[in-house]
């Protein structure tokens, strides 16, 4: 009789899964300010620290601006750090986002994505994350609690390889507060996977350096170009880390995940948990009705996986991008649509592509809605922006 290896599984929300990953990564400093729906991540981490399961400094700060500032300082000394925020908190920390990436600090931050005020909404959409997309951070958008756990661990390895901060985002509430089975890795194995890679320069009284000096027009541009190069490097390293993680722990996702795309005529491109799960079921339903449907999920959002997306879309006749944030006043209001359109234009590809905006403020995206998108692609493929699910 073959004895099967018993794997350690827990029923966890994505928030708790993130907390378990942070514990496994053995972080040194956590700075936090509570904001819905992020709070339970840090509640769990505080519990780990209080119980002596995690030997970390947990700093209670007075705002998200301070939370990110505190981890910037700690990371500059060479500590492994973690913070988490959401929505208005991410906006409040926005200026520090730029500072963290420009100082090239390997910070890892979890963001259960949430709608922005006004009017106040505590519910999930991706307005906050999309506002942070041009700040020089690496951004993952994950689709399950298991993936959130795995990606936090990958994020530390990536961050400390290319010296860039990494954001791991997922649906607020729909993922942050719903329970899924999560397979947890052996913590000692995670620590072997994540040897501490300290930056070449740290704040250290024995070896004084200056960080964040003034740069005149003679110097500033070069440092910004360094960030461009770093994100290009991060694109390669993210794929390598994913492969390395897969061969060690048995789970890998790629930078872009596809579902039944090989023979698909019509594809739906999207991100995050809710849309992805529903999109797969919608694709299955469309296939039952004779429409060759497929799904593409963008997992690594920044740096943008241009090649993988173009490759996945190669065979399709028309596709739709389902965005869950609005870029007001843009030629097309969906942020992911804009990225894909740019990628296609720059590579001389022209295809019918509809931009669907849906799920704003956690407006329910029904499977039926996404099925309708496939019929739309089949019946009247074109280029337009559709605000789905809104009362017009």
């Amino acid at each position, binding site marked *: 009789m073959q004895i099967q290896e018993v794997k350690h599984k827990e029923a966890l929300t994505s928030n708790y899964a993130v907390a378990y990953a942070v514990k496994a990564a053995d972080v040194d400093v956590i700075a936090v300010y509570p904001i819905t729906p992020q709070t339970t991540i840090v509640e769990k981490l505080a519990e780990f620290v209080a119980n002596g399961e995690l030997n970390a400094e947990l700093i209670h700060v007075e705002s998200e601006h301070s939370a990110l500032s505190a981890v910037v300082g700690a990371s500059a000394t060479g500590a492994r750090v973690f913070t988490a925020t959401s929505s208005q908190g991410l906006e409040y920390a926005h200026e520090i986002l730029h500072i963290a990436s*420009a*100082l*090239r*600090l390997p910070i890892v931050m979890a963001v259960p994505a949430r709608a922005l005020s006004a009017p106040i909404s505590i519910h999930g959409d991706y307005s906050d994350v999309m506002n942070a997309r041009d700040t020089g951070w690496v951004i993952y958008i994950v689709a399950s609690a298991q993936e959130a756990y795995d990606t936090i661990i990958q994020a530390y390895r990536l961050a400390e390889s290319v*010296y860039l901060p990494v954001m791991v985002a997922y649906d607020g509430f729909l993922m942050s507060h719903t329970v899924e089975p999560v397979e947890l890795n052996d913590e000692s194995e995670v620590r072997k996977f994540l040897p501490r890679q300290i*930056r*070449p*320069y740290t704040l250290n009284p024995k070896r*004084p*350096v*200056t*960080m*964040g*000096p003034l*740069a005149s027009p*003679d*110097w500033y*541009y*070069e*440092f910004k*170009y*360094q960030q461009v*190069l*770093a994100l290009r490097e991060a694109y390669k390293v993210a794929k390598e880390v994913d492969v390395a993680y897969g061969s060690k722990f048995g789970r890998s996702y790629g930078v872009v995940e596809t579902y039944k795309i090989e023979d698909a005529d019509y594809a739906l491109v999207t991100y995050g948990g809710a849309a992805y799960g529903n999109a797969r079921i919608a694709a299955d339903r469309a296939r039952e009705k004779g429409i060759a449907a497929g799904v593409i999920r963008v997992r690594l959002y920044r740096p943008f996986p241009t090649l993988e997306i173009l490759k996945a879309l190669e065979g399709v006749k028309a596709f739709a991008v389902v965005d869950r944030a609005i870029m007001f006043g843009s030629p097309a209001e969906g942020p992911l649509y804009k990225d894909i359109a740019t990628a296609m234009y720059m590579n001389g590809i022209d295809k019918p592509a509809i931009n669907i905006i849906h799920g704003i403020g956690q407006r329910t995206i029904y499977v039926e809605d996404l099925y309708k998108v496939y019929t739309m692609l089949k019946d009247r493929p074109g280029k337009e922006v559709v605000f789905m699910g809104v009362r017009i």
Partner: protein
Amino acid sequence: MTLPKATQLPIGAVIPEPGSTRKNITAGWRTLRPVINDERCIRCQLCWLYCPEGTIVEKRGVFKVGNRTYDVKYEINYDYCKGCGICANECPTKAIEMVPETT
């Protein structure tokens, strides 16, 4: 002068050594340079006091000027003087003249 390329600079704009500003000549933007006329200088120290960059250098020694002897002399450190002209403006005897920089 050729400045280092983006790939040659330490990442994150770190300055990897302390006291590096001592090596940086910060007078690059000067268009007028102050020149002290030692004949008219009465050693009142006002230029030294008012200089916002601390570029007036006080030298000790025996200095004969005409038939007078002083134990101190003021000079300007042109590596750091930005040519603001405050010294010339404050000098009570108009001993400091602002002269155009020539390359």
